[in-house]
Protein backbone atom coordinates (compact mmCIF):
# COMPACT_ATOMS: atom_id res chain seq x y z
CA UNK A 1 0.00 0.00 0.00
CA UNK A 2 2.89 2.38 0.72
CA UNK A 3 3.94 2.49 -2.93
CA UNK A 4 0.39 3.32 -3.88
CA UNK A 5 0.26 6.09 -1.34
CA UNK A 6 3.61 7.52 -2.46
CA UNK A 7 2.51 7.66 -6.08
CA UNK A 8 -0.97 8.93 -5.48
CA UNK A 9 -0.49 10.75 -2.18
CA UNK A 10 -0.30 14.25 -3.57
CA UNK A 11 -3.17 13.90 -6.04
CA UNK A 12 -5.26 12.28 -3.35
CA UNK A 13 -4.58 15.00 -0.80
CA UNK A 14 -5.45 17.67 -3.33
CA UNK A 15 -8.70 15.90 -4.16
CA UNK A 16 -9.57 15.54 -0.48
CA UNK A 17 -8.95 19.22 0.15
CA UNK A 18 -10.96 20.24 -2.91
CA UNK A 19 -13.90 18.12 -1.77
CA UNK A 20 -13.63 19.48 1.76
CA UNK A 21 -13.62 23.07 0.53
CA UNK A 22 -16.72 22.49 -1.60
CA UNK A 23 -18.46 20.95 1.36
CA UNK A 24 -17.39 23.76 3.71
CA UNK A 25 -18.67 26.29 1.18
CA UNK A 26 -22.08 24.58 1.13
CA UNK A 27 -22.24 24.23 4.92
CA UNK A 28 -20.77 27.55 6.01
CA UNK A 29 -21.68 29.69 2.98
CA UNK A 30 -25.25 30.45 4.08
CA UNK A 31 -24.15 31.20 7.64
CA UNK A 32 -21.32 33.50 6.54
CA UNK A 33 -23.63 35.23 4.06
CA UNK A 34 -26.07 36.05 6.87
CA UNK A 35 -23.20 37.33 8.99
CA UNK A 36 -21.99 39.56 6.16
CA UNK A 37 -25.54 40.79 5.48
CA UNK A 38 -26.09 41.78 9.08
CA UNK A 39 -23.26 44.32 8.71
CA UNK A 40 -24.70 45.83 5.52
CA UNK A 41 -27.20 48.65 5.21
CA UNK A 42 -30.65 48.17 3.69
CA UNK A 43 -29.73 49.83 0.37
CA UNK A 44 -26.54 47.79 0.00
CA UNK A 45 -28.54 44.58 0.45
CA UNK A 46 -30.90 45.62 -2.35
CA UNK A 47 -28.10 46.10 -4.90
CA UNK A 48 -27.54 43.75 -7.84
CA UNK A 49 -25.27 41.87 -7.81
CA UNK A 50 -25.03 41.30 -4.06
CA UNK A 51 -21.94 42.42 -2.18
CA UNK A 52 -20.40 39.32 -0.65
CA UNK A 53 -18.56 41.50 1.84
CA UNK A 54 -20.02 44.75 3.18
CA UNK A 55 -18.47 47.71 1.37
CA UNK A 56 -19.73 50.16 3.96
CA UNK A 57 -19.77 47.97 7.07
CA UNK A 58 -22.16 49.17 9.73
CA UNK A 59 -23.32 48.00 13.13
CA UNK A 60 -26.45 50.17 12.85
CA UNK A 61 -28.72 47.09 12.52
CA UNK A 62 -27.51 45.67 15.81
CA UNK A 63 -27.73 49.16 17.28
CA UNK A 64 -31.37 49.41 16.26
CA UNK A 65 -32.32 46.04 17.71
CA UNK A 66 -30.66 46.72 21.05
CA UNK A 67 -31.16 50.49 21.47
CA UNK A 68 -33.87 51.53 19.01
CA UNK A 69 -31.61 53.98 17.16
CA UNK A 70 -32.96 53.98 13.59
CA UNK A 71 -30.34 53.00 10.98
CA UNK A 72 -29.55 55.87 8.63
CA UNK A 73 -30.36 54.04 5.41
CA UNK A 74 -33.91 53.31 6.52
CA UNK A 75 -34.48 56.85 7.70
CA UNK A 76 -33.17 58.68 4.64
CA UNK A 77 -34.96 56.52 2.11
CA UNK A 78 -38.19 56.87 4.05
CA UNK A 79 -38.70 53.12 4.04
CA UNK A 80 -38.88 52.61 7.77
CA UNK A 81 -41.83 50.36 8.47
CA UNK A 82 -43.18 50.72 11.96
CA UNK A 83 -44.55 47.19 12.20
CA UNK A 84 -41.38 45.34 11.38
CA UNK A 85 -39.39 47.66 13.58
CA UNK A 86 -41.44 46.76 16.61
CA UNK A 87 -40.96 43.06 15.99
CA UNK A 88 -37.21 43.37 15.48
CA UNK A 89 -37.03 45.38 18.69
CA UNK A 90 -38.43 42.34 20.50
CA UNK A 91 -35.40 40.21 19.62
CA UNK A 92 -33.47 40.92 22.86
CA UNK A 93 -36.49 40.00 25.00
CA UNK A 94 -37.07 36.87 22.91
CA UNK A 95 -33.42 35.89 23.35
CA UNK A 96 -33.88 36.21 27.09
CA UNK A 97 -37.09 34.14 27.01
CA UNK A 98 -35.42 31.45 24.93
CA UNK A 99 -32.38 31.31 27.18
CA UNK A 100 -34.44 31.07 30.38
CA UNK A 101 -36.76 28.41 28.97
CA UNK A 102 -34.04 26.28 27.39
CA UNK A 103 -31.75 26.45 30.42
CA UNK A 104 -34.57 25.57 32.82
CA UNK A 105 -35.59 22.63 30.65
CA UNK A 106 -31.98 21.44 30.51
CA UNK A 107 -31.57 21.58 34.30
CA UNK A 108 -34.95 20.03 35.20
CA UNK A 109 -34.57 17.47 32.46
CA UNK A 110 -31.23 16.23 33.78
CA UNK A 111 -32.36 16.34 37.43
CA UNK A 112 -35.57 14.36 36.86
CA UNK A 113 -33.96 12.26 34.16
CA UNK A 114 -30.99 11.03 36.16
CA UNK A 115 -33.19 10.22 39.15
CA UNK A 116 -35.38 8.00 36.98
CA UNK A 117 -32.51 6.65 34.88
CA UNK A 118 -30.59 5.49 37.96
CA UNK A 119 -33.69 3.71 39.25
CA UNK A 120 -34.22 2.00 35.90
CA UNK A 121 -30.61 0.90 35.65
CA UNK A 122 -29.94 -0.41 39.18
CA UNK A 123 -33.19 -1.30 40.95
CA UNK A 124 -35.45 -4.21 40.17
CA UNK A 125 -39.08 -3.48 40.89
CA UNK A 126 -42.43 -4.68 39.70
CA UNK A 127 -43.54 -3.03 36.45
CA UNK A 128 -40.07 -1.79 35.53
CA UNK A 129 -40.10 -2.71 31.86
CA UNK A 130 -43.76 -1.71 31.51
CA UNK A 131 -43.07 1.79 32.83
CA UNK A 132 -39.91 2.11 30.77
CA UNK A 133 -41.62 1.07 27.55
CA UNK A 134 -44.51 3.41 28.30
CA UNK A 135 -42.08 6.34 28.62
CA UNK A 136 -40.38 5.50 25.33
CA UNK A 137 -43.73 4.84 23.64
CA UNK A 138 -44.93 8.38 24.33
CA UNK A 139 -42.42 9.58 21.74
CA UNK A 140 -44.31 7.71 19.02
CA UNK A 141 -46.96 10.43 19.01
CA UNK A 142 -46.09 12.88 16.23
CA UNK A 143 -46.01 16.56 17.20
CA UNK A 144 -48.76 17.63 14.83
CA UNK A 145 -51.08 14.97 16.29
CA UNK A 146 -50.77 16.21 19.87
CA UNK A 147 -50.84 19.93 19.08
CA UNK A 148 -54.52 20.55 19.88
CA UNK A 149 -54.65 18.39 23.05
CA UNK A 150 -51.44 20.00 24.32
CA UNK A 151 -53.02 23.40 23.78
CA UNK A 152 -56.09 22.24 25.71
CA UNK A 153 -54.00 20.96 28.64
CA UNK A 154 -51.77 24.01 28.88
CA UNK A 155 -54.80 26.27 28.60
CA UNK A 156 -56.67 24.31 31.32
CA UNK A 157 -53.65 24.67 33.61
CA UNK A 158 -53.74 28.41 33.01
CA UNK A 159 -50.23 28.30 31.58
CA UNK A 160 -50.77 29.75 28.10
CA UNK A 161 -48.23 32.45 27.27
CA UNK A 162 -46.02 31.57 30.23
CA UNK A 163 -42.51 30.21 30.63
CA UNK A 164 -43.77 27.31 32.68
CA UNK A 165 -46.22 26.13 30.01
CA UNK A 166 -43.46 25.79 27.43
CA UNK A 167 -41.04 24.32 29.96
CA UNK A 168 -43.56 21.62 30.83
CA UNK A 169 -44.19 20.77 27.18
CA UNK A 170 -40.49 20.64 26.35
CA UNK A 171 -39.87 18.39 29.35
CA UNK A 172 -42.34 15.88 27.91
CA UNK A 173 -40.46 15.99 24.60
CA UNK A 174 -36.99 15.60 26.07
CA UNK A 175 -37.42 13.39 29.16
CA UNK A 176 -37.96 10.01 27.44
CA UNK A 177 -34.76 10.42 25.42
CA UNK A 178 -32.76 11.61 28.44
CA UNK A 179 -33.93 8.73 30.64
CA UNK A 180 -33.18 6.17 27.97
CA UNK A 181 -29.81 7.72 27.17
CA UNK A 182 -28.72 8.05 30.82
CA UNK A 183 -29.98 4.59 31.74
CA UNK A 184 -27.64 3.07 29.17
CA UNK A 185 -24.88 5.35 30.35
CA UNK A 186 -25.26 4.33 34.01
CA UNK A 187 -25.57 0.63 33.13
CA UNK A 188 -22.15 0.86 31.49
CA UNK A 189 -20.53 2.26 34.68
CA UNK A 190 -18.76 -0.20 37.02
CA UNK A 191 -21.02 -1.27 39.89
CA UNK A 192 -18.27 -2.30 42.36
CA UNK A 193 -17.93 1.04 44.15
CA UNK A 194 -21.70 1.26 44.60
CA UNK A 195 -21.82 -2.23 46.10
CA UNK A 196 -19.00 -1.43 48.52
CA UNK A 197 -20.72 1.79 49.59
CA UNK A 198 -23.99 -0.08 49.98
CA UNK A 199 -22.39 -2.47 52.46
CA UNK A 200 -21.17 0.58 54.39
CA UNK A 201 -24.82 1.58 54.73
CA UNK A 202 -25.22 4.13 51.96
CA UNK A 203 -28.82 4.68 50.84
CA UNK A 204 -29.83 4.78 47.19
CA UNK A 205 -30.06 8.56 47.00
CA UNK A 206 -26.61 8.91 48.57
CA UNK A 207 -25.20 6.38 46.10
CA UNK A 208 -26.67 8.38 43.24
CA UNK A 209 -25.47 11.76 44.48
CA UNK A 210 -22.01 10.79 45.76
CA UNK A 211 -20.89 8.04 43.42
CA UNK A 212 -22.93 7.88 40.23
CA UNK A 213 -23.30 11.60 39.49
CA UNK A 214 -19.54 12.33 39.27
CA UNK A 215 -18.95 9.25 37.11
CA UNK A 216 -21.88 10.03 34.81
CA UNK A 217 -20.96 13.72 34.36
CA UNK A 218 -20.12 13.47 30.62
CA UNK A 219 -23.44 11.73 29.98
CA UNK A 220 -25.28 14.39 31.95
CA UNK A 221 -23.56 17.12 29.93
CA UNK A 222 -24.61 15.48 26.67
CA UNK A 223 -28.20 15.06 27.85
CA UNK A 224 -28.34 18.67 29.03
CA UNK A 225 -26.94 19.91 25.73
CA UNK A 226 -29.58 17.97 23.79
CA UNK A 227 -32.39 19.23 25.99
CA UNK A 228 -31.15 22.80 25.65
CA UNK A 229 -30.88 22.66 21.89
CA UNK A 230 -34.18 20.94 21.23
CA UNK A 231 -35.97 23.43 23.49
CA UNK A 232 -34.20 26.42 21.97
CA UNK A 233 -34.98 25.23 18.44
CA UNK A 234 -38.61 24.12 18.87
CA UNK A 235 -41.07 26.12 16.81
CA UNK A 236 -44.59 24.68 16.42
CA UNK A 237 -45.51 24.55 20.12
CA UNK A 238 -43.80 27.84 20.85
CA UNK A 239 -45.99 29.34 18.13
CA UNK A 240 -49.19 27.81 19.54
CA UNK A 241 -48.63 28.27 23.26
CA UNK A 242 -47.28 31.81 23.38
CA UNK A 243 -49.12 35.01 22.55
CA UNK A 244 -47.02 37.96 23.64
CA UNK A 245 -43.38 38.86 24.07
CA UNK A 246 -43.78 37.82 27.72
CA UNK A 247 -43.01 34.28 26.62
CA UNK A 248 -42.39 34.25 22.84
CA UNK A 249 -39.11 32.58 21.94
CA UNK A 250 -36.51 33.36 19.27
CA UNK A 251 -37.87 31.06 16.53
CA UNK A 252 -41.32 32.65 16.90
CA UNK A 253 -40.11 36.26 16.89
CA UNK A 254 -37.55 35.85 14.11
CA UNK A 255 -40.02 33.99 11.89
CA UNK A 256 -42.57 36.73 12.43
CA UNK A 257 -39.93 39.35 11.57
CA UNK A 258 -39.00 37.42 8.42
CA UNK A 259 -42.43 36.41 7.11
CA UNK A 260 -43.68 39.99 7.22
CA UNK A 261 -43.91 40.93 3.52
CA UNK A 262 -42.66 44.45 4.31
CA UNK A 263 -39.63 43.12 6.13
CA UNK A 264 -36.43 45.11 6.26
CA UNK A 265 -33.73 42.81 4.93
CA UNK A 266 -31.02 44.22 7.15
CA UNK A 267 -33.10 43.62 10.25
CA UNK A 268 -34.02 40.07 9.17
CA UNK A 269 -30.35 39.22 8.68
CA UNK A 270 -29.42 40.72 12.02
CA UNK A 271 -32.22 38.87 13.85
CA UNK A 272 -31.19 35.62 12.16
CA UNK A 273 -27.57 36.13 13.23
CA UNK A 274 -28.62 36.81 16.81
CA UNK A 275 -30.82 33.69 16.78
CA UNK A 276 -27.93 31.56 15.50
CA UNK A 277 -25.34 32.67 18.00
CA UNK A 278 -26.41 30.73 21.13
CA UNK A 279 -26.90 27.30 19.50
CA UNK A 280 -23.76 27.67 17.37
CA UNK A 281 -21.62 28.50 20.40
CA UNK A 282 -23.25 25.58 22.18
CA UNK A 283 -22.56 23.24 19.27
CA UNK A 284 -18.90 24.23 19.08
CA UNK A 285 -18.32 23.98 22.83
CA UNK A 286 -20.18 20.68 23.21
CA UNK A 287 -19.09 19.22 19.87
CA UNK A 288 -17.62 16.04 21.32
CA UNK A 289 -20.53 15.36 23.65
CA UNK A 290 -23.09 16.03 20.95
CA UNK A 291 -21.40 13.81 18.40
CA UNK A 292 -21.08 10.99 20.91
CA UNK A 293 -24.66 11.44 22.08
CA UNK A 294 -26.04 11.48 18.55
CA UNK A 295 -24.19 8.32 17.70
CA UNK A 296 -25.43 6.60 20.84
CA UNK A 297 -28.98 7.76 20.08
CA UNK A 298 -28.98 6.11 16.69
CA UNK A 299 -26.87 3.08 17.44
CA UNK A 300 -28.87 1.52 20.27
CA UNK A 301 -32.49 0.54 20.52
Amino acid sequence: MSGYVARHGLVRRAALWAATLVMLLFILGPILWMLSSSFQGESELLTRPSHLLPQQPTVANFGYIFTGAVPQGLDVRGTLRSRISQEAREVPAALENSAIIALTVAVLNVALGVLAAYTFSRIRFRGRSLVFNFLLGTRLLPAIAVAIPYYAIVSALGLLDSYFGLILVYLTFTLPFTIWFLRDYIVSLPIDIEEAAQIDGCGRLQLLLRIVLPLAAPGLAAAAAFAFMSSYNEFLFALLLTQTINSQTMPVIVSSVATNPDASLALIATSVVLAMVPPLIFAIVFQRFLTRGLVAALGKS
Partner: protein
Amino acid sequence: MVQQRAGESRRPSIGRQGAAGRESRYAYLTLLPVLLIMAVFSLYPIGYSVYLSLHKEVLTDPLNHPFVGFQNFNNVLHSYYLISSLTSTLVFMVMAVPGVMVFGLLASLLLNESFAGARILRVAILLPWAMPAVISGIVWRWILNGDYGVLNSALFQLGIIHDYIPWLSSPDLARVGLAVAHVWREGPLAAIFFLAGLQTIPTDLYNSAAVDGAGRMAAFRRITLPLLRPTIVIVLIYETIVAATTFDLVYVMTGGGPADATSLISWYAYAEVFKFLDLGAGAALAFLIALALVGVILLYLRVLRTEEQR
Protein backbone atom coordinates in the same frame (compact mmCIF):
# COMPACT_ATOMS: atom_id res chain seq x y z
CA MET B 1 -50.13 5.14 35.12
CA VAL B 2 -51.48 3.20 38.06
CA GLN B 3 -48.89 3.01 40.79
CA GLN B 4 -48.40 -0.36 42.42
CA ARG B 5 -48.10 -0.46 46.17
CA ALA B 6 -44.57 -0.52 47.40
CA GLY B 7 -43.59 -3.63 49.30
CA GLU B 8 -45.29 -6.05 46.95
CA SER B 9 -42.09 -6.84 45.18
CA ARG B 10 -40.77 -10.20 46.30
CA ARG B 11 -37.46 -9.89 44.53
CA PRO B 12 -34.95 -8.27 46.84
CA SER B 13 -32.18 -6.70 44.81
CA ILE B 14 -29.78 -6.47 47.68
CA GLY B 15 -29.05 -9.26 50.09
CA ARG B 16 -30.75 -8.17 53.27
CA GLN B 17 -34.37 -8.96 54.10
CA GLY B 18 -36.74 -6.02 54.43
CA ALA B 19 -34.61 -3.88 52.14
CA ALA B 20 -36.71 -4.90 49.14
CA GLY B 21 -39.69 -2.84 50.26
CA ARG B 22 -37.50 0.18 50.79
CA GLU B 23 -35.95 -0.30 47.36
CA SER B 24 -39.34 -0.47 45.64
CA ARG B 25 -40.58 2.56 47.53
CA TYR B 26 -37.50 4.48 46.44
CA ALA B 27 -38.03 3.31 42.87
CA TYR B 28 -41.66 4.44 42.70
CA LEU B 29 -40.94 7.74 44.42
CA THR B 30 -38.18 8.67 41.99
CA LEU B 31 -40.29 7.76 38.98
CA LEU B 32 -43.43 9.51 40.18
CA PRO B 33 -42.73 13.05 38.89
CA VAL B 34 -41.69 11.85 35.45
CA LEU B 35 -44.60 9.43 35.17
CA LEU B 36 -47.10 12.07 36.24
CA ILE B 37 -45.95 14.54 33.59
CA MET B 38 -45.71 11.94 30.86
CA ALA B 39 -49.09 10.38 31.65
CA VAL B 40 -50.92 13.71 31.56
CA PHE B 41 -49.23 14.62 28.28
CA SER B 42 -49.78 11.32 26.50
CA LEU B 43 -52.95 9.59 27.70
CA TYR B 44 -55.11 12.72 27.70
CA PRO B 45 -54.01 13.80 24.18
CA ILE B 46 -54.88 10.36 22.82
CA GLY B 47 -58.32 10.38 24.43
CA TYR B 48 -59.03 13.95 23.45
CA SER B 49 -57.98 13.32 19.83
CA VAL B 50 -60.28 10.31 19.64
CA TYR B 51 -63.15 12.46 20.92
CA LEU B 52 -62.40 15.31 18.51
CA SER B 53 -62.06 13.05 15.49
CA LEU B 54 -65.49 11.50 16.09
CA HIS B 55 -67.33 14.80 16.56
CA LYS B 56 -68.04 17.82 14.44
CA GLU B 57 -65.73 20.47 15.89
CA VAL B 58 -65.48 23.54 13.73
CA LEU B 59 -64.50 26.69 15.57
CA THR B 60 -66.61 28.89 13.30
CA ASP B 61 -69.66 26.94 14.53
CA PRO B 62 -68.86 26.76 18.25
CA LEU B 63 -72.17 25.57 19.71
CA ASN B 64 -72.74 22.61 17.45
CA HIS B 65 -70.78 19.42 18.29
CA PRO B 66 -72.81 16.40 17.19
CA PHE B 67 -71.27 12.94 17.21
CA VAL B 68 -70.55 12.16 13.56
CA GLY B 69 -68.86 8.75 13.72
CA PHE B 70 -66.21 8.32 11.08
CA GLN B 71 -67.41 11.19 8.92
CA ASN B 72 -64.32 13.29 9.64
CA PHE B 73 -62.11 10.41 8.51
CA ASN B 74 -64.28 9.96 5.46
CA ASN B 75 -64.08 13.66 4.60
CA VAL B 76 -60.32 13.75 5.04
CA LEU B 77 -59.75 10.59 3.00
CA HIS B 78 -61.84 11.95 0.13
CA SER B 79 -60.44 15.46 0.29
CA TYR B 80 -58.73 16.91 -2.76
CA TYR B 81 -56.08 18.33 -0.45
CA LEU B 82 -55.13 14.93 0.92
CA ILE B 83 -54.15 13.65 -2.52
CA SER B 84 -52.41 16.89 -3.43
CA SER B 85 -50.49 17.10 -0.14
CA LEU B 86 -49.53 13.42 -0.28
CA THR B 87 -48.21 13.99 -3.79
CA SER B 88 -46.24 17.03 -2.66
CA THR B 89 -44.86 15.10 0.30
CA LEU B 90 -43.80 12.22 -1.93
CA VAL B 91 -42.16 14.51 -4.49
CA PHE B 92 -40.35 16.27 -1.66
CA MET B 93 -39.21 12.99 -0.11
CA VAL B 94 -37.98 11.61 -3.45
CA MET B 95 -35.59 14.57 -3.64
CA ALA B 96 -34.83 15.16 0.03
CA VAL B 97 -34.15 11.64 1.33
CA PRO B 98 -31.64 10.53 -1.34
CA GLY B 99 -30.11 14.01 -1.13
CA VAL B 100 -29.57 13.63 2.60
CA MET B 101 -28.22 10.09 2.21
CA VAL B 102 -25.73 10.94 -0.56
CA PHE B 103 -24.59 14.13 1.16
CA GLY B 104 -24.22 12.29 4.46
CA LEU B 105 -22.25 9.45 2.94
CA LEU B 106 -19.86 11.73 1.02
CA ALA B 107 -19.33 13.98 4.03
CA SER B 108 -18.72 11.00 6.31
CA LEU B 109 -16.05 9.61 3.97
CA LEU B 110 -14.26 12.97 4.19
CA LEU B 111 -14.72 13.14 7.96
CA ASN B 112 -13.20 9.68 8.31
CA GLU B 113 -9.92 10.75 6.67
CA SER B 114 -7.10 11.85 8.91
CA PHE B 115 -6.11 15.30 7.70
CA ALA B 116 -6.63 18.85 8.96
CA GLY B 117 -9.61 19.37 6.65
CA ALA B 118 -11.55 16.60 8.36
CA ARG B 119 -11.02 18.18 11.75
CA ILE B 120 -12.34 21.55 10.52
CA LEU B 121 -15.29 19.83 8.86
CA ARG B 122 -16.09 17.94 12.05
CA VAL B 123 -16.90 21.19 13.88
CA ALA B 124 -18.52 22.95 10.92
CA ILE B 125 -20.85 20.11 10.06
CA LEU B 126 -22.77 20.36 13.34
CA LEU B 127 -23.71 23.99 12.75
CA PRO B 128 -26.63 23.66 10.27
CA TRP B 129 -28.16 20.99 12.48
CA ALA B 130 -27.65 23.04 15.64
CA MET B 131 -29.77 26.05 14.69
CA PRO B 132 -33.58 26.19 14.71
CA ALA B 133 -35.17 24.81 11.53
CA VAL B 134 -37.12 28.04 11.03
CA ILE B 135 -33.86 29.97 11.03
CA SER B 136 -32.34 27.75 8.34
CA GLY B 137 -35.58 28.17 6.36
CA ILE B 138 -35.31 31.96 6.54
CA VAL B 139 -31.66 31.84 5.48
CA TRP B 140 -32.47 29.72 2.42
CA ARG B 141 -35.57 31.73 1.48
CA TRP B 142 -33.34 34.75 1.32
CA ILE B 143 -30.55 33.04 -0.61
CA LEU B 144 -33.15 31.90 -3.18
CA ASN B 145 -34.90 35.28 -3.36
CA GLY B 146 -35.72 36.27 -6.93
CA ASP B 147 -34.90 39.99 -6.65
CA TYR B 148 -31.74 40.20 -4.57
CA GLY B 149 -30.86 36.60 -3.65
CA VAL B 150 -27.18 35.75 -3.46
CA LEU B 151 -27.63 32.55 -5.51
CA ASN B 152 -29.02 34.55 -8.42
CA SER B 153 -26.23 37.07 -7.97
CA ALA B 154 -23.55 34.36 -8.07
CA LEU B 155 -25.05 32.53 -11.08
CA PHE B 156 -25.46 35.84 -12.89
CA GLN B 157 -21.88 36.92 -12.31
CA LEU B 158 -20.63 33.52 -13.43
CA GLY B 159 -22.62 33.98 -16.63
CA ILE B 160 -24.73 30.89 -16.05
CA ILE B 161 -28.01 32.82 -16.07
CA HIS B 162 -28.90 36.10 -17.78
CA ASP B 163 -31.94 36.98 -15.69
CA TYR B 164 -32.60 36.56 -12.00
CA ILE B 165 -34.78 33.48 -11.40
CA PRO B 166 -37.60 33.68 -8.84
CA TRP B 167 -36.80 30.25 -7.39
CA LEU B 168 -39.54 30.09 -4.80
CA SER B 169 -42.29 31.46 -7.07
CA SER B 170 -42.29 28.51 -9.46
CA PRO B 171 -43.95 25.34 -8.11
CA ASP B 172 -41.22 22.97 -9.36
CA LEU B 173 -38.28 25.15 -8.37
CA ALA B 174 -39.83 25.85 -4.97
CA ARG B 175 -39.95 22.11 -4.30
CA VAL B 176 -36.28 21.80 -5.26
CA GLY B 177 -35.39 24.81 -3.12
CA LEU B 178 -37.17 23.31 -0.13
CA ALA B 179 -35.35 20.01 -0.65
CA VAL B 180 -31.96 21.76 -0.85
CA ALA B 181 -32.63 23.59 2.41
CA HIS B 182 -33.68 20.28 3.96
CA VAL B 183 -30.49 18.55 2.81
CA TRP B 184 -28.42 21.42 4.22
CA ARG B 185 -30.09 20.95 7.58
CA GLU B 186 -30.42 17.17 7.80
CA GLY B 187 -27.42 15.98 5.77
CA PRO B 188 -24.91 16.79 8.52
CA LEU B 189 -26.78 14.59 10.98
CA ALA B 190 -26.69 11.69 8.53
CA ALA B 191 -22.96 12.33 8.06
CA ILE B 192 -22.33 12.00 11.81
CA PHE B 193 -24.29 8.75 11.90
CA PHE B 194 -22.41 7.35 8.90
CA LEU B 195 -19.09 8.40 10.41
CA ALA B 196 -19.89 6.36 13.52
CA GLY B 197 -20.64 3.39 11.27
CA LEU B 198 -17.41 3.85 9.32
CA GLN B 199 -15.35 3.95 12.50
CA THR B 200 -16.53 0.47 13.49
CA ILE B 201 -15.01 -1.03 10.33
CA PRO B 202 -11.58 -2.52 11.18
CA THR B 203 -8.72 -0.92 9.20
CA ASP B 204 -7.12 -4.37 8.82
CA LEU B 205 -9.76 -5.22 6.24
CA TYR B 206 -8.63 -2.36 4.01
CA ASN B 207 -4.95 -3.23 4.49
CA SER B 208 -5.42 -6.85 3.45
CA ALA B 209 -7.62 -5.77 0.54
CA ALA B 210 -4.81 -3.49 -0.62
CA VAL B 211 -2.31 -6.34 -0.30
CA ASP B 212 -4.62 -8.41 -2.48
CA GLY B 213 -4.41 -5.62 -5.05
CA ALA B 214 -7.89 -4.19 -4.64
CA GLY B 215 -8.26 -0.53 -5.66
CA ARG B 216 -10.06 2.06 -3.59
CA MET B 217 -13.33 1.78 -5.49
CA ALA B 218 -13.30 -2.00 -5.12
CA ALA B 219 -12.58 -1.70 -1.41
CA PHE B 220 -15.44 0.79 -1.06
CA ARG B 221 -17.88 -1.52 -2.86
CA ARG B 222 -16.74 -4.80 -1.27
CA ILE B 223 -15.93 -3.66 2.28
CA THR B 224 -17.35 -0.24 3.15
CA LEU B 225 -20.81 -0.52 1.67
CA PRO B 226 -21.68 -4.01 2.96
CA LEU B 227 -20.39 -3.28 6.47
CA LEU B 228 -22.15 0.07 6.53
CA ARG B 229 -25.44 -1.53 5.49
CA PRO B 230 -27.05 -1.64 8.97
CA THR B 231 -26.26 2.06 9.52
CA ILE B 232 -27.55 2.95 6.07
CA VAL B 233 -30.85 1.16 6.69
CA ILE B 234 -31.36 2.84 10.06
CA VAL B 235 -30.49 6.32 8.80
CA LEU B 236 -32.69 5.80 5.74
CA ILE B 237 -35.75 5.01 7.82
CA TYR B 238 -35.03 7.78 10.31
CA GLU B 239 -34.59 10.35 7.55
CA THR B 240 -37.76 9.12 5.84
CA ILE B 241 -39.73 9.94 8.98
CA VAL B 242 -38.04 13.33 9.34
CA ALA B 243 -38.74 14.27 5.71
CA ALA B 244 -42.34 13.06 5.89
CA THR B 245 -43.05 15.31 8.87
CA THR B 246 -41.22 18.44 7.67
CA PHE B 247 -43.13 21.50 8.86
CA ASP B 248 -40.92 24.35 10.11
CA LEU B 249 -39.14 24.82 6.77
CA VAL B 250 -42.44 25.01 4.88
CA TYR B 251 -43.84 27.51 7.36
CA VAL B 252 -41.09 30.08 6.81
CA MET B 253 -39.91 29.30 3.25
CA THR B 254 -43.04 28.92 1.17
CA GLY B 255 -46.14 28.83 3.38
CA GLY B 256 -47.22 25.78 1.37
CA GLY B 257 -47.14 27.61 -1.97
CA PRO B 258 -46.87 28.43 -4.75
CA ALA B 259 -50.12 26.78 -5.82
CA ASP B 260 -49.88 24.25 -2.95
CA ALA B 261 -46.70 22.79 -4.50
CA THR B 262 -44.98 22.62 -1.11
CA SER B 263 -48.09 21.99 0.97
CA LEU B 264 -46.70 18.88 2.65
CA ILE B 265 -48.90 16.60 4.74
CA SER B 266 -47.95 18.16 8.09
CA TRP B 267 -48.60 21.60 6.64
CA TYR B 268 -52.02 20.41 5.48
CA ALA B 269 -52.80 19.08 8.97
CA TYR B 270 -51.72 22.42 10.42
CA ALA B 271 -53.84 24.38 7.94
CA GLU B 272 -56.89 22.18 8.57
CA VAL B 273 -56.79 23.13 12.24
CA PHE B 274 -55.35 26.63 12.35
CA LYS B 275 -56.56 28.08 9.06
CA PHE B 276 -59.84 26.24 8.37
CA LEU B 277 -60.41 25.84 12.14
CA ASP B 278 -61.80 22.33 11.67
CA LEU B 279 -60.54 20.54 14.76
CA GLY B 280 -62.45 17.33 13.99
CA ALA B 281 -60.96 16.91 10.54
CA GLY B 282 -57.55 17.99 11.87
CA ALA B 283 -57.67 15.32 14.59
CA ALA B 284 -58.78 12.67 12.09
CA LEU B 285 -55.93 13.61 9.75
CA ALA B 286 -53.45 13.65 12.63
CA PHE B 287 -54.62 10.15 13.50
CA LEU B 288 -53.98 8.90 10.00
CA ILE B 289 -50.52 10.50 9.96
CA ALA B 290 -49.72 9.04 13.39
CA LEU B 291 -50.87 5.62 12.23
CA ALA B 292 -48.67 5.76 9.13
CA LEU B 293 -45.69 6.93 11.19
CA VAL B 294 -46.15 4.28 13.86
CA GLY B 295 -46.17 1.78 11.00
CA VAL B 296 -42.84 3.13 9.75
CA ILE B 297 -41.39 3.17 13.28
CA LEU B 298 -42.46 -0.44 13.95
CA LEU B 299 -40.83 -1.40 10.68
CA TYR B 300 -37.78 0.51 11.89
CA LEU B 301 -37.65 -1.42 15.18
CA ARG B 302 -38.10 -4.70 13.34
CA VAL B 303 -35.29 -3.92 10.95
CA LEU B 304 -33.10 -2.91 13.89
CA ARG B 305 -33.74 -6.24 15.56
CA THR B 306 -32.96 -8.31 12.48
CA GLU B 307 -29.84 -6.23 11.82
CA GLU B 308 -28.67 -6.90 15.36
CA GLN B 309 -29.06 -10.63 14.83
CA ARG B 310 -26.96 -10.61 11.70
